[in-house]
């Protein structure tokens, strides 16, 4: 079976770990747990013509005190940028992060997940922002780790992009 390494990248508390937990184990917890270093999970994806083993590297979120260790990204087949839809600044930081990632591991398929779509009253991402992403030809999707909305589709879409 083909194996692929996928990295979850984003600012802190954007819901990277929750997205992985929802996707891999189908569970969600309200309790926030910050990731120290990296957590690794695996999910087997059934694509139309083959199975794919995704090794998901849930890398700790980047903030002003802790930068992402780019060495974790080596050998990735693709990556997922996670944005908190209720914190517009995370969208800005993700753009910077993407540049650094591309510098480190080169041009690779990636998808942007705008998480916490269930919190519509706190939503800060506007259409302009989405247009800007489209202009950059980024693939993006709304999702909610809490409800599970759009989560699986995001991972499957990236898997298809990799293959």
């Amino acid at each position, binding site marked *: 079976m083909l194996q692929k390494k996928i990295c979850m990248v984003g600012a802190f508390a954007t819901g990277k770990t929750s997205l992985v937990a929802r996707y891999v184990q189908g569970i969600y917890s309200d309790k926030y747990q910050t990731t120290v270093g990296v957590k690794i999970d*695996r999910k087997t994806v059934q694509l139309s013509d083959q199975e794919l083993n995704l090794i998901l*590297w849930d890398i700790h979120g980047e903030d002003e005190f802790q930068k992402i260790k780019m060495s974790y990204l080596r050998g990735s087949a693709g990556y997922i940028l996670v944005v908190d839809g209720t914190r517009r600044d995370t969208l800005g930081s993700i753009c910077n992060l993407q540049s650094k990632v591309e510098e480190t591991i080169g041009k690779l398929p990636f998808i942007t997940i705008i998480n916490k779509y269930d919190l519509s009253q706190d939503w800060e991402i506007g259409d302009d922002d989405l247009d800007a992403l489209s202009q950059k030809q980024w693939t993006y999707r709304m999702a909610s780790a809490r409800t599970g909305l759009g989560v699986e589709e995001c991972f499957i879409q990236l898997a298809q992009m990799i293959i």
Partner: protein
Amino acid sequence: MSDLPSDTKRGASSPDPSTSASELTELRSLLIGPALQEHNKLDAEDVSRVLPKAMQLTVQQNDPAVTDVIVPTVEQAIKTSVITDEKILSEALFPIMGPAIRKAIAAAIQNLTDSLNQSLEHSLSPQSLSWRFEAWRTGKSFAEVLLLRTLVYQVEQVFLIHKTSGLVLQHLAAETAIAQDADLVSAMFTAIQDFVRDSFSVSDDTLGSLQVGELTIWVNEGPQAIIACVIRGNPPRRLRQTMENALERIHVIQKEQLHQFQGDSSTFEASQPYLEECLQAQYQANKKRSSPLKWFGGAAGILLLGLGIWGILASLKYHQVQSFVNQLNQKPGIVVLMTQQQQGKYTISGLKDPLADNPYQLIQQTELDPGQIDFRWEPYLSFHPHFMKARVTELLQPPDTVEFTLDADGSIQASGTASQAWITESQQLALRLPQITAFHTQDLIPDENGVLADLKKKIETQSIFFTQNAQLVPQQTGHLQQLANNIKTLTKTAKALNQKVTILVEGHTDTSGPELINLPLRKTRAKALISILSEQGVNKTTFKIASGKSTPLTNSLLVPQADQSHRKVTFKVLFIHPSDVDI
């Protein structure tokens, strides 16, 4: 064409030399320039053709000049290669570097082992003694055995991991091990490696081992792949070598697959035998781990076997000794009272008559080692008839004509002839012997000079032969005369000694005729002879006719003269005491 410039030169006879020189140069370049360029080009091609050959010749001639020229260039080339991309050279050198480094390390370890040997030289615990025995038995050094015995381990899992992605290429687990999700563990190894590298800014070095409780994780890193072993316990140094060897070989045989890895691990099945070596090393060590128990079992087995053999031998020997004791007890004059065993030696004690057989001579006839048996005898006098007779004979010193008969009640009957003095002395002496209740001498004939005994012997050995009937064989007149004289002398002497003589005359026949005829014939022959002897002056009353007997005809046809010897008359002399005569 080469002559052209000189022709031109000769043709130019201009009075201005400077002008003519520049023109000449121009003309030369016009004429031979293209050819010269062509010529230079041809030289490079020619040189490239002959260069390898030239280099080969130079090497064969062992010319140091070429080496001197090449060395700086090669050095510079290597330097440039390292600056440009150090990986190229490092990958090229990887298969060579490993063995060379290991060799150096092995030498260092050997030194360490030697020093350990010295430091442990005086250690004398029971366990160290058993290890010393093992070292002597296996030919290893003591320190090697010490290390081996203290290292107990099991390689539970082996991972082959793609270095950059952390994806698992191959994973093997021991049958008894509880294997975790290889994909996750593999990725975590890589993440930990990355974390350590970044955190401690050691870009070239790797984390060699991890310790988690009882588990040790050893990691060996190559240019493209990593081998990680999950080990329970204390792994030995040689496991590192096994891992290193496996990694090197995998890099050699799967170089292409490693470079082109895109997530398909099925192409790495060829690596499995090398990874199994890492697991196999563990199995051998495990076997050795159980060896102390095996040793104990072995030692106990040997001990039991030894005890068994010793028991059988001891039992065999015991039975041999018992059999010998029984043999001794059956001998007259020996009574075994006790048999003791002490420190593998037997002591047989009891009573022994001085006249009894020598036990040391008896032991020679058995399979027992005489050195293993001690005797302790108390002397005693046995009343066995054999010894009684021997003692009586020894004490009384009888003449040959006397015979003793021992009765169960301890009485001795003496018979034959002897001097009166001996008879009288014997009657006194015999009763001094213990257990002799009576010494009967009534059958003894006093015979001072042995005359009676002599005559008795002469008469009893005399035979007179007959023909098939009661006729005497001719030419026996002399014998008959001598016989008659002997009998007359005997009766006369006996009378003087107050003895009466009776001579039993026995007629003999062969068995050729029926007993009905033979019986009267034997009497007839006896009577005939008595008649002849009485004619020669012997008193008829001296004789009594005995029954006689028939002697079978053996080989009568082959030896006819032998049959004649059966047809005879013989004599037996009886001395009768005067009291018996009255009866």
